[in-house]
């Protein structure tokens, strides 16, 4: 594939679409919203292809491990591919089996993993969350008040949950809004970089 098709052409498409959607938002163009909606629909379609690409990549990666009998890895790959095939085939041909697998195996395993992490949270609270300076004291204080505010029974004791709610509503809200504003400005800066062709990671470039 030529360099033009690999890097410059995708950047050109990106810049045209970006400018069009950006200006269409501010300047009324006849038929503009319809074209924007169509572009949005294309993104949905492309995203579906991205899922397919992910599945193919998984098969390629683990298939290679299985074929090459990579030590300590090939059987993990075999389990993943077998699970994938089971879900795919059952979803396609035997819907009740798929529903059963989803509800009783996938959901159960996923929940178990989250619970496992939960136990380590508790252990970490005792073992590692230590006050060593003023900043960590503030964090600990906010953490305790939020835990109290979130415990249902705390609401029955007047004022007990209010400190946590106040922290969430006042300093928490302020900090979060500041964070959102800075993130939005950051996104805007990235958009400008992309419009100038400086963001090239999606074409396989280094930045």
């Amino acid at each position, binding site marked *: 594939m030529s360099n033009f098709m690999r890097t410059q052409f995708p950047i050109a498409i990106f810049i045209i679409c970006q400018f069009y959607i950006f200006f269409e938002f501010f300047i009324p163009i006849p038929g503009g919203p319809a074209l924007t909606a169509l572009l949005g629909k294309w993104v949905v379609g492309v995203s579906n292809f991205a899922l397919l690409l992910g599945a193919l990549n998984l098969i390629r990666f683990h298939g290679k491990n299985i074929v090459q009998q990579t030590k300590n890895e090939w059987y993990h790959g075999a389990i993943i591919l077998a699970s994938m095939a089971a879900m795919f085939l059952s979803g396609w041909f035997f819907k009740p089996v798929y529903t059963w697998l989803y509800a009783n195996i996938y959901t159960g395993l996923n929940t178990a993993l989250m619970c496992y992490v939960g136990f380590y949270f508790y252990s970490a609270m005792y*073992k590692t969350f230590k006050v060593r300076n003023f900043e960590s004291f503030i964090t600990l204080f906010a953490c305790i008040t939020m835990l109290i505010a979130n415990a249902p029974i705390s609401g029955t004791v007047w004022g007990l949950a209010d400190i946590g709610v106040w*922290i969430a509503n006042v300093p928490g809200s302020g900090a979060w809004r500041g964070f959102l504003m800075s993130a939005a400005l950051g996104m805007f800066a990235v958009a400008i970089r992309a419009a100038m062709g400086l963001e090239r990671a999606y074409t396989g470039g280094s930045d």
Partner: protein
Amino acid sequence: MSLLEKLDQLDRRIIFLILLLLCFFPVLMPLGLPVPVSPATTSAYNAMVTLKPNDIICMTFDYAGGSAAELYPQNLVILKHALKLNLRAVAVSFTVGGLELADQCLAEAGWGSKTYGVDYVNLGFVAGTETGMAAFVKDIQATISADARGTPLSQIPIMNDAKNINSFKYLAFTTSTSQDMYVRQFSGKGVPIIGCIQSLYFSVLQVYMGSGQIVGFLNGLRGSAEYEVMIKELGIGAISMDQASLTHWFAVLLLIMGNITSYFVRKNPRAKGGK
């Protein structure tokens, strides 16, 4: 070794065991601890009760099994309430895992007694995350051509009345990840927006509620318990509230105890390895 040193070096398995007991004990012997209803849940409830029969609500299912313990009961209780009020429902997911959960939740909430396609529909998965949402908001039928069962949307009666976000009188997004994109895409369109979230994101949703971008939200399992109390139909949320109260306070106790023991052990030269 002093008691403080022993506590400082407490075996984590003891913490795990106590946590297990605090989780199981209230299920076997419910304590019936009170569940006061928060303003966020009251607002979510009020937004629902003002609807008229046959109004259409939309609910997103954007989570998978790992977060289902907290989020599924919220969907369940809202759908049960909507069914009681004779509303119509549209379910949709912007993440892959939500499709099955939507089917399961609609069935468990009792929507099987209604007619699929007329009173409720599961639109399935819409790819593209935020872009998918933006397209969904503008024109549903242009975004997806068929529901989760593969029936073309043009053949589904409820979809004649559900063209875009303005067709809904209530929209509840349920997500285990960032809520920002939902607020960005759904709010400000004249539709009351309700957030169904994990407790982890409580403070984030407080911000959006304070600014009026969402009407209310259900705060994790506690939110669903509060909603169950309000509609007088106790379920898994209410059952879990004794656990939630005990385990939250256990966490507070661990944080305080961990810091007290570590402070005194640091002050004690023996614990630092001195003689």
